[in-house]
């Protein structure tokens, strides 16, 4: 359903003294999701991943520049097409409750999202009620204000907002941040449910463990770019993971006894070659020459010269 090729996002900003500075936050990002799939995008907490969701919706701030090819349902995703699809076929589940207007009642806001997704005025009240009961929210919650919601309820309201319509692609931005394990599992369960009904779900998170519970495929994101695409089952044993960064991540999981920490890898415009040379055991002379492309390997992909 969604196919991203070589996406890059750059920001221009002014620093102290009004000096102009352009930072490249995302570069060479490749991603594919099929209907019914939950694709997790995993990486360290940082601006890169959340920006992906905003970029896909075309709502980045004015000082951002996006390059690359994005295909949605086979056709290119142009800004014009985006403004028609936003909220209708592509929906966002935001990260925090601040995405809701503190002065408006929750029910009103969900209803508005429903209207924007194409539901008629007549059908909106029933649709909203249905969405609320689907996520086990009492009817009276609709009359509450955002600050009255608990963490778990907030998460459910935000999910309801995104699913009240008929969106086929759901972008979930850090759905488990700040939640206790039970609520987190519940939230992920909702996402799995959505995928099982045929939608495509993009799950952006830094928490691999919880992501692996529901994800079908995993894209590993580091230093602004995709380093590996793997199936969820590849994470069950050590041998299947191809990229040193992914392995390091896997090792660091509590279940795998917190083995080793990794020096943070930065890629600047001055870096030539693969930035992961220092931690890779397959490293050789060719690694220092050029940045590796994303190659197919087995049933996944990896950014490595030696795949």
């Amino acid at each position, binding site marked *: 359903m969604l196919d991203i090729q070589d996406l890059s996002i750059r920001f221009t900003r002014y620093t102290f003294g009004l000096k102009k500075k352009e930072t490249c936050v995302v570069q060479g990002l490749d991603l594919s999701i099929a209907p019914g799939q939950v694709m997790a995008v995993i990486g360290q907490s940082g601006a890169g991943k959340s920006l992906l969701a905003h970029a896909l919706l075309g709502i980045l701030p004015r000082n951002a520049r996006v390059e690359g090819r994005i295909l949605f349902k086979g056709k290119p995703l142009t800004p014009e097409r985006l403004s028609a699809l*936003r*909220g209708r076929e592509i929906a966002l589940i935001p990260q925090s409750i601040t995405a809701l207007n503190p*002065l*408006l009642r929750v029910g009103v806001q969900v209803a*508005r999202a429903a209207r924007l997704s194409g539901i008629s005025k007549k059908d909106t009240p029933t649709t909203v009620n249905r969405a609320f009961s689907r996520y086990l929210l009492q009817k009276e919650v609709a009359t509450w204000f955002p*600050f009255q919601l608990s963490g778990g309820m907030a998460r459910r309201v935000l999910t309801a907002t995104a699913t009240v319509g008929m969106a086929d692609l759901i972008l979930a931005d850090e759905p488990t941040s700040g939640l206790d394990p039970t609520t987190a599992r519940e939230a992920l369960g909702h996402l799995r449910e959505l995928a099982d009904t045929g939608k495509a779900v993009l799950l952006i998170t830094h928490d691999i463990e919880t992501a692996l519970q529901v994800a079908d495929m995993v894209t590993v994101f580091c230093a602004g770019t995709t380093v590996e695409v793997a199936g969820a089952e590849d994470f069950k044993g050590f041998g299947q993971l191809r990229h040193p960064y992914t392995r390091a991540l896997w090792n660091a999981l509590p279940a795998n006894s917190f083995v080793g920490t990794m020096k943070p890898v930065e890629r600047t415009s001055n870096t030539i070659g693969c930035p992961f040379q220092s931690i890779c055991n397959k490293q050789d002379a060719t690694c220092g020459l050029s940045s590796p492309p994303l190659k197919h390997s087995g049933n996944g992909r990896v950014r490595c010269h030696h795949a």
Partner: protein
Amino acid sequence: MITRFLVVKTCRLILLIAAVATLSFVLVNSSPVNPVDAYVGAAMLRISPDQREVIAKRWGLDRPPVERFGRWAGQMATGNLGVSTIFNEPVLSVIGKRFVTSFWLMALAWSLSGALGFGLGLIAGAREDTLLDRGIRLYAYTMASTPTFWVGMILLMIFSVSLGWTPVCCAWPPGLSAEQATQWQRLHHLLLPALTLSLVGIAQITLHTREKTIQALRSDYAIFARAQGESTVGIVFRRALRNVALPAVTLQFASLGELFGGAVLAEQVFAYPGLGRTTVEAGIRGDIPLLLGIVLFSTIFVFTGNFMADFIYHLVDPRLRKATGAIS
């Protein structure tokens, strides 16, 4: 819960009046201006010191300040604000009559500047950095830097002197008494002063609203709304309006003081016989009872505005409602 709010506010008002009364009395007493001399004015040379003493005694000026304050405060508590030395009428009736004249001027200007200012601010904020925004900003910044009385003078020169469309002074045609003047005539005389006040009053609320609109459009909820497919206009009118209107309304109510001040200047330029002009007269000619009376009256006036601002804030913002528990 509302009653508790009201009781608290009433107590506040009483304390406020007490504080302002004391403060003004102290200020007025430390003035080097001798009220007797001010009253006598040009006739000073012809009046003997004995006659001056008689006047002073009549006004109780020969008593020590504390006793004078006590007498004055006591009288004030019963509603007697003394007699104006300029008009030889009870202060209360002077204020009453003049206020009615000023009221229409201020009401018209306040509504106009509030509505227009809010609207312009919304437009400027929603269309940030466009030519329209720059134009509105330029207008607002210019007006914020322009003295009210100068605007009045320019309007006077253009519309009254050059074009002759509006009268040069006063609240109704000179020569007529208040009762003889018709509504239309009053309105005619009201136009320029009201226009003066509106033109200038718009600036602050426009800029403030614009700032709040821009903030709202950059907030998390605006971004989320955009993600749902909401257009900028939609965000402004369906989502952010309350967030922007609340501080705007608050500001507008709290600006009654500036409004009165503007009225003082505008009335001076157009010789409009309202309370503003009377204040100036009282100050220059040293009419202490009247001046003190006006200070107290305007205190109540401004208090009402601030009260409304607070009330509305607590009423509309659900977070504060819960937090203070003053209003459920």
